[in-house]
């Protein structure tokens, strides 16, 4: 019983992290057909911001780090993606690769390529005793953060004017523009939100792996990308669902696969992506976003 509970907790934790990644990617894809590979570098930037600011009091570190990641997301949008707004999705994907490569190597230039220990919020590594279980504090904190982020995001998208505009623009950009939605504001808002989501991932992920490095964002972005495709590109609920599905699959594979097959976990995940693309290209939650227009 407790083993099953542990798997469930693992799946929610792993899946929640992927869901946050997938939401950050899905938010931007929905609104401008951009698969933002540089989302991983927002995560990396969040970790570096916390590493740089470590001497400040904790709450200030958090506030400044969130602000830094959001500003970086806005700057990237302004400098690289806004001039390319009319470009094809494939061009946008190449551009986001370029941004990702740029930011990674800029970090190498500024701080060197070697990994650094992540010391912020070291208490996260402690174990808590809950109902006789020893639970790592990190798991509890990430669970709370993930649930809070998802709730806030839902409220933001469903209850605020700009959130409704964003969903409208994602569904039909032309119709939204014709009804007076200001595109630049909405896209900027989407990037800022994706930045905030990336910061949460950077806190949890950096605490998990205990270090930061210029290419630390690549793995989460690749997995988040899988989740976005599985859930259905362009659908936000699909992205969140996709994240949890990938998390469950990853934890499940870890448990089910023979130990010599475990390293191939990622091959299975990407094999799944291929199957989804071929058999159900619209993903779990279908939208019009992927349909090729004649």
């Amino acid at each position: 019983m407790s083993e099953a509970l542990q798997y469930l907790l693992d799946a929610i934790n792993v899946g929640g992290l992927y869901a946050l990644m997938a939401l950050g990617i899905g938010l931007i894809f929905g609104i401008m057909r951009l698969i933002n590979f540089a989302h991983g570098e927002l995560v990396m930037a969040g970790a570096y911001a916390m590493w740089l600011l470590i001497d400040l009091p904790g709450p200030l570190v958090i506030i400044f780090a969130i602000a830094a990641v959001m500003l970086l997301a806005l700057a990237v949008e302004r400098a690289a993606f806004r001039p390319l707004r009319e470009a094809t999705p494939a061009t946008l994907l190449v551009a986001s690769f370029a941004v990702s490569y740029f930011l990674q190597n800029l970090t190498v230039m500024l701080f060197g390529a070697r990994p650094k220990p992540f010391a912020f919020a070291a208490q996260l590594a402690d174990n808590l005793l809950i109902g006789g279980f020893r639970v790592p504090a990190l798991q509890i904190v990430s669970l709370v953060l993930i649930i809070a982020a998802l709730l806030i995001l839902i409220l933001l998208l469903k209850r605020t004017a700009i959130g409704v505009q964003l969903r409208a623009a994602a569904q039909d950009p032309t119709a939204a523009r014709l009804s007076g939605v200001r595109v630049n504001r909405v896209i900027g808002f989407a990037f800022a939100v994706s930045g905030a989501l990336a910061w949460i991932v950077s806190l949890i992920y950096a605490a998990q792996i205990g270090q930061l490095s210029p290419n630390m964002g690549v793995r989460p972005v690749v997995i988040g990308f899988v989740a976005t495709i599985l859930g259905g590109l362009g659908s936000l609920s699909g992205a969140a669902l996709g994240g949890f599905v990938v998390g469950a699959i990853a934890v499940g594979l870890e448990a089910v696969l023979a130990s010599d097959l475990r390293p191939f976990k990622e091959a299975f995940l990407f094999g799944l992506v291929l199957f989804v693309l071929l058999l159900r290209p619209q993903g779990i939650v279908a939208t019009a976003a992927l349909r090729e227009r004649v």
Partner: protein
Amino acid sequence: MRPLLGYGERLWTPLALCLLLAAIVAAASFGSAGTQRIVTDALIKLVVVVGTYIFVGNSGVLSFGHIGFMGIGAYVAAWLTIPPETKSFLLPKLPGLLAATEWPASLAAVAAGAAAALFAFIVGLPLMRLSGISASIGTFAVLAVVNAVLSNWTSMTGGQGSLYGLPSYTNLPVATAWAMLAIVIAWIYQRTAYGFRLRSTREDETAAKAAGVDVHRERLIAFVLSAFFVGVSGALYAHFLGVVIAKEFYLKLTFMSIAMLVIGGLTSLSGAVLGVVVVSSLGELLREVERGANLGFLTIPARPGLQEVVLAAALLLILIFRPRGLTAGRELPPPRRWMARRLYRHRDPVPAHPSKADIHGSSA
């Protein structure tokens, strides 16, 4: 009737590109061993990029998977050419047939290309049904699967470790020969009916389908041919470094090759070649700066990462300001002399004033 000049014009692009390479190689062959290695490395990248171009340039479908084919080629070359006694302790579990073989490297390079082409055929069969961004994502998934398998299949690839002991086969002449072959085949392909049909699907998929073009078949043909050269390039690279490591064949090389292709111009062979030449030269220049430089009056400190930052910025600037690349998707124009003579012939099949041809022609 305009056979001779017609052929001349048709052959101009591959001829000019090969001459350009020949000039660079000739200059490099007088240089130091270091210079020769740099040019050899660039020529291997040229095989990668021209190979990728055969599919991407003609179909317009961006592929992120080709470096996976390169990885496959490299491992096939390693299996076939590492001496059996080295293999027996590097990969003790290798199947008997592979464990005992020791092929000449040139033959292994062809086999590497064939293996990559076969793999491309198998994955391309379903994958080439996808279009646009789905196809790009699909090819990326192929890259990720190939990389995960190569870096974890310990009994066959040695996993994260490296395979060494490959005979050194790739030198300047060998790399030049393969690069020129890739250019010539790419050109021949794009001038055949297959090439034209695929290009028509690039311009307008729906219209091409309506005109009876089998999009799936045409894409698959180009995908397989293109994988062959990329597979060969993997073997060349393996025999150049003497070592094969799975993590080499992943995002960095993918980014590099796509950057070269896009900067030069995605839709023309000249663009693919030019992209490699420009990016490699730029990279070499920056590598010098990266090491730190002393200009006498000014000392530039060493800056690792600078090369990559500038490459990424250059790619972004090209995407924003010159989205069709440096060549704008055109092939090299034939020299003016030939143009003039052709115009002249069209107007007047029997030249009344032969001297006129001289004025237009040989003086330049």
